[in-house]
């Protein structure tokens, strides 16, 4: 026995110390503070579909967390396998579950189109040949839901010598032709930069590009800047006849900050069905709010921060008039960030990420839910932090990344 003492000690120490360490690690996640919304008004049932992704900013450790239906879950509490694939888009997750084989190797929700019969996909593949020449091609795939027939093919991107890069912004299926809307940067030899919006029409039966239409082309020189944005569609992959394109201009001041020039920007709408491109005429005050706007194919929702309280304005694009102006019972805080989303006929408005000047402590995040039509407040609440050790929550806070409503 005495001869084995060395080995026995090693084995015992290894099992005991490594074992206790990982048991402690596994139970330590429950020591992290819980964030919940304290209801100030309304029913907390309204919180059920709300998912908020963010980070617990402890000192010195940051922990990603999700508040779902008012329950805090840290990603360190989830199993290794749940964390394995990282956070993916809810819509992507749903598609992947339903059409596992079709979805293999495909990502980016903007590349998809889904209706009752079809699921379509378009992306651009860029590759360099051995001689260093760039080759770009469309990756197109179509799934017929009932027959489970899959078609996929590649076609060369037309006019690709001109184009530096392409990013897919919307895919639609109109009269069995695939419409792919992209924003492209154009190659140039001089200082001039050009950004374009292209609409490619793809014939799925004959596997070729029927047309490459330039909807918008904007050139500029430093220090001027142009950005092309697509106000986020509330239902990104569903059939939509209309898409909005927002053009934002700005300038880099010498040694100074970047300044946007809201009055020079414009908002365009394109109708896939009628193939008409129009400039949307908005009341002047509303023009610069379009960027963070939400668009559901008919109405554009923008957040107005110019009054004392936050306003949600609904703009009907068929007549370009403000049809609804909803005032939230929440004062504008310019030093805080807002996150707004429209779902189920409700506005979900989350305000947070602000800190107190003196002690740099995080202010609680505030969530308001209101009925879009009547403007009635359905829920009002703010985050509270609960911890086993209250003393330790000093300087701890919750940083919001996004709000999703199911």
């Amino acid at each position, binding site marked *: 026995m005495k001869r084995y003492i060395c080995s026995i000690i090693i084995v015992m120490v290894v099992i005991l110390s490594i074992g206790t360490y990982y048991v402690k690690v596994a139970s330590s996640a429950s020591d992290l503070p819980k964030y919940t919304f304290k209801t100030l008004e309304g029913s907390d049932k309204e919180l059920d579909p709300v998912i908020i992704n963010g980070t617990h900013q402890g000192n*010195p450790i940051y922990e990603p967390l999700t508040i779902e239906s008012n329950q805090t879950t840290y990603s360190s509490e989830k199993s290794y396998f749940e964390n394995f694939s990282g956070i993916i888009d809810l819509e992507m997750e749903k598609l992947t579950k339903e059409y596992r084989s079709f979805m293999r190797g495909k990502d980016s929700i903007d590349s998809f189109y889904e209706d009752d019969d079809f699921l379509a996909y378009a992306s651009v593949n860029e590759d360099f040949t051995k001689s260093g020449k760039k080759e770009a091609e469309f990756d197109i795939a179509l799934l017929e839901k009932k027959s489970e027939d899959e078609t996929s093919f590649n076609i060369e991107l037309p006019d690709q010598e001109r184009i530096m890069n392409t990013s897919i912004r919307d895919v639609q299926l109109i009269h069995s032709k695939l419409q792919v809307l992209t924003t492209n940067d154009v190659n140039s030899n001089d200082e001039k930069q050009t950004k374009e919006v292209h609409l490619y029409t793809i014939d799925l039966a004959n596997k070729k590009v029927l047309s490459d239409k330039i909807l918008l082309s904007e050139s500029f020189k430093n220090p001027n800047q142009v950005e092309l944005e697509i106000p986020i569609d509330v239902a990104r992959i569903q059939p939509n006849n209309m898409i909005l394109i927002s053009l934002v201009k700005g300038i880099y001041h010498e040694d100074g900050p970047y300044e946007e020039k809201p009055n020079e920007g414009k908002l365009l709408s394109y109708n896939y069905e009628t193939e008409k491109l129009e400039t949307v005429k908005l009341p002047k005050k509303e023009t610069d709010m379009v960027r963070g706007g939400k668009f559901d194919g008919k109405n554009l929702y923008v957040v107005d921060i110019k009054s004392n309280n936050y306003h949600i304005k609904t703009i009907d694009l068929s007549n370009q008039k403000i049809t609804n102006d909803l005032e939230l019972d929440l004062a504008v805080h310019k030093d805080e960030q807002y996150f707004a989303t429209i779902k189920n006929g409700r506005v979900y408005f989350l305000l947070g990420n602000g800190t107190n000047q003196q002690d740099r402590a995080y202010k609680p995040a505030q969530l308001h839910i209101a009925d879009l039509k009547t403007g009635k407040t359905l829920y009002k609440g703010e985050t509270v932090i609960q911890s086993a050790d209250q003393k330790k929550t000093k300087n701890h806070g919750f940083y919001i990344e996004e709000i999703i409503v199911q």
Partner: protein
Amino acid sequence: MMRYIKLVNFEINRFSKIYISLLLITLVSQLVGVIIGTKSFLNRALDIMLEEKISEAAYVTNYGGIDFTQIANSLWFQGPIALSAVALVFYIFLIWYRDWFGKNTFIYRLLMLPTSRLSIYLSKATAIFLMVLGLIALQIIILPMENALFNSYVPESLLNTEMSTSSIVKMNSVLNLVIPSTFTQFLLSYGIGLMAMSILFTAIMFERSFRIKGIILGLVFTGIAAALFLAPVFIMASESFYFYPNELFGIMTALGIIVTGLSIWLGSWLLKNRVTV
């Protein structure tokens, strides 16, 4: 079974002097690192506070306080971890070659033993693996002690934050590598380590069997084993097929087990049939 345990114990005892030195070096160097690191910080802080006539709180806002991450990044702290790692990798080779080239060629007696050659192979692997885990265990045991020592030394006003052992490990890349943050990750990391060791052992068996030619065979074997294990990654990189993350995980786990099993089988087969003394 008893023979195998005896052999493991025998291998550990043979390395015990160097191993205990490694443990002691780690312990002493890290404790010295904590004391010297804290002392020099406190002296510097005191000098500046006297010179500029500022309070502790003003010092912290101007120059920043201290926490254990600064200590854990010092050479005193990480040096012994690196030294132990290098020593054990080196011993993977030494554990075989000392039997051939040491005094009175011990391998004669080892191969004469009335036990299966597989247990000789496995006992050497087990000994090294246990010693690796022993070093990790030591680090896990002394880290909270060092942390407590550090916290008792530094006045609270100069301390950024009191850290838990697991957050110290998370904030330090070297510690995080040797002590993975979850148990699953621990199993995976050390499983891959075990696989790498079995591949190296088998490469050594090739060399011992066929000498110069064996070195080439050993290299070829190592290449094939690595390529087999990483095959799904290569397939994905070539964009010919996409695996979902959980599929990739499953396939690589299975391949890892197959590669390890194959290496052990081939290694012990060579030891039994081809190794010449």
